[in-house]
């Protein structure tokens, strides 16, 4: 028979009280603490973690992105502002208006944008339509681009991976889509066939920098909880979609704290693949895909996600075939997954 010692009883009692207090405190803390942040931003919002200077540049760039560039020549543009096309569902997004669909011509390994009212531009014999790509999270993609042995980045911009610089992309889009040239554009890009007879910058270098920063710091699309879509995720994998639509990309470098250590859950490998057109096209990022369309695909050829899947040929023929073999309920699970990313 053990003898209970008063000291030990006091210690046990105090421990119990302390344990209860810890439990209560943890409960209160849990109640006071909000759920984890759903996303670092929202459609059109800046990435979390920007410093004051980056945020101010983002906001200045946002206004330039929404600006109506009336001073540009009508014959040298397809739209009057960036948001005229990049607007779905918010500034920086995709576009569904007829204004957002632009003809392009592919030659000499590059894509030339054709201006609607420029008859010289339409001298090219063949052209095809391009849909406005959404820009949410493009900065994360930029920083996930692999590097070549010489340290330069692999080209990841453009439908055919023609450009490796976000600055180059923005300057070209300003000039070719809005008729707004910059000193960067005037210095390095041929003007033949664009209707720009005399390349005079309409946007300053500082403004161009702000515009680039706006695009760079746009937050990726908000993600939904993945817990209820695991079955759809498995189907995505089973259909071999992940071979090109790689779920995540690690940041290979950083241009500031908002990118450091962030994994881009973009569902793209940033590479070109032949989908049956013999030329290859860049794997688009699927994050937020159901919020930026229809239409879908680079040429707006698909009016639904299913239609887009079925148009996968060439290297993706097997995936399209596997999709056709899915039951209706499996297709529904897959769609729910695609709506969550």
């Amino acid at each position, binding site marked *: 028979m053990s003898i209970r010692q008063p000291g030990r009883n006091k210690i046990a009692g105090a421990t119990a009280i302390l344990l209860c207090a810890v439990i209560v405190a943890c409960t209160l803390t849990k*109640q*006071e*603490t*909000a*759920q*984890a*942040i*759903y996303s670092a931003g*929202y459609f059109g*919002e800046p990435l979390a973690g920007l410093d004051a200077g980056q945020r101010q540049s983002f*906001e200045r760039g*946002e*206004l330039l992105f*929404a*600006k*109506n560039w009336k001073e540009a020549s009508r014959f040298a543009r397809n739209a009057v*502002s960036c*948001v*005229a096309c990049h*607007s*779905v*569902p918010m*500034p920086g997004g995709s576009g*569904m*208006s007829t204004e957002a669909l632009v003809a392009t011509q592919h030659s000499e390994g590059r894509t030339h944008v054709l201006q609607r009212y420029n008859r010289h531009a339409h001298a090219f014999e063949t052209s095809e339509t391009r849909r406005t790509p959404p820009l949410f999270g493009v900065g994360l993609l930029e920083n996930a681009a692999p590097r070549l042995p010489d340290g330069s980045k692999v080209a990841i911009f453009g439908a055919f991976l023609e450009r490796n610089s976000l600055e180059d992309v923005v300057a070209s889009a300003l000039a070719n889509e809005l008729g707004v040239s910059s000193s960067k554009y005037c210095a390095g890009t041929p003007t033949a066939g664009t209707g720009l007879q005399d390349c005079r910058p309409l946007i300053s270098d500082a403004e161009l920098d702000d515009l680039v920063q706006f695009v760079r710091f746009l937050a990726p699309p*908000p993600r*939904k*909880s993945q817990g209820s879509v695991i079955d759809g995720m498995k189907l995505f994998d089973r259909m071999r979609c992940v071979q090109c639509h790689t779920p995540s990309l690690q940041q290979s470098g950083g241009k500031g704290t908002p990118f450091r250590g962030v994994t881009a859950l973009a569902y793209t490998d940033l590479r070109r693949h032949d989908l049956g057109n013999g030329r290859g096209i860049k794997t688009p990022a699927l994050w937020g895909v*159901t*919020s930026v369309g229809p239409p879908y695909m680079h040429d707006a050829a698909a009016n639904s996600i299913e239609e887009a899947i079925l148009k996968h040929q060439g290297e993706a023929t097997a995936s399209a075939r596997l999709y056709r073999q899915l039951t209706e309920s499996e297709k529904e699970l897959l769609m729910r997954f695609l*709506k969550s990313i």
Partner: protein
Amino acid sequence: MRCLIMFALLIFAAGPLAAGNSTAKGDRMILATYWGDDKVALIDLQGDQGHEEIWALDTLKAVGCSKPYDVRSNERGDEAFVSCSGTDKIIVIDVVAQQVKYSITTGSSPRDLVLFDGGKKLIVANSGNDTVSVIDTIKRVKLYDFPVSSQPYGVAVSPDGKKAVVTGWASGDVHFVNLGDKSATIVGKLDVGMLPYTVILPGDGAVAYVAANGSHHVAALDMAKRELRSKIKVGRNPWSLAASGDGKFVLVTNNRSNNLSMIKTGTALPAIAEDKNFISAGSQLQANGESVQRSAKNASVSLNGKQGVFTDLANNQIVVVDLESKAITRVINVGKAPYGIEFIH
């Protein structure tokens, strides 16, 4: 549960007549949409901490509604009208039965909506295809669409139901519209600033207020002259506007300056008073120890004008503010990406 809701609604409706009843309907219950969860919820602001949500309807996707956005209730508070921004319809929810009654096809990606003509009609801006839909809620049919470019988002209707104001955020302007029974006519446009998303017509409807998100001001517009009266400087990136029931003030959510503004309206005066007050939106301590400032997105003002509620997308919360003391009185953790919010009248 249905009995509880009906009982609660009856008590609130009878509030003003019952001695000792502290809250009338319109000051306690709110409807909210969770854009990220595809849900609509009914919330009791005086419910037990952690249990404020009376119900959260998660069957929206089954009826083809995704990304629920704006929400409005009818006068009785027994119907909720929700815009389904991920598709092309609005749905009507029976608040008591907690189920979707019916849906009506609109244009693509419907956003802000407003009930007018005593709740018999509804107007909604379809940002996806540059149209605005007018709907007969009694016959449950769409009456007509009319085009507005570009990117119509916010909409407001005059008290007589004959005039509307629609914002075009991509074009930086508002459109003045005459509403008919079978069609509408745009009678004017006015530049109001960068990225104008939302608009309201409080009180007698003589002045419209537009939140110019990119210009950091609220534009006050003379509806009779269709002119800009003044630009009221508020916080950074004003998003939504919520008017008090008497139209005497407007609550503005400043999405990127961590606060809200209160603007006094002088609807009966020739000039708009520019007095404003700031209300801090506060911050929330996260589980990782980081304090995240709130980004007030959408707001609503209680029937008695004493409380305001706003949604915070940064922390997935609904926050209650005492508009007299300007203090936060309650923080409610809700579903993902709460957007639409409205006191049930």
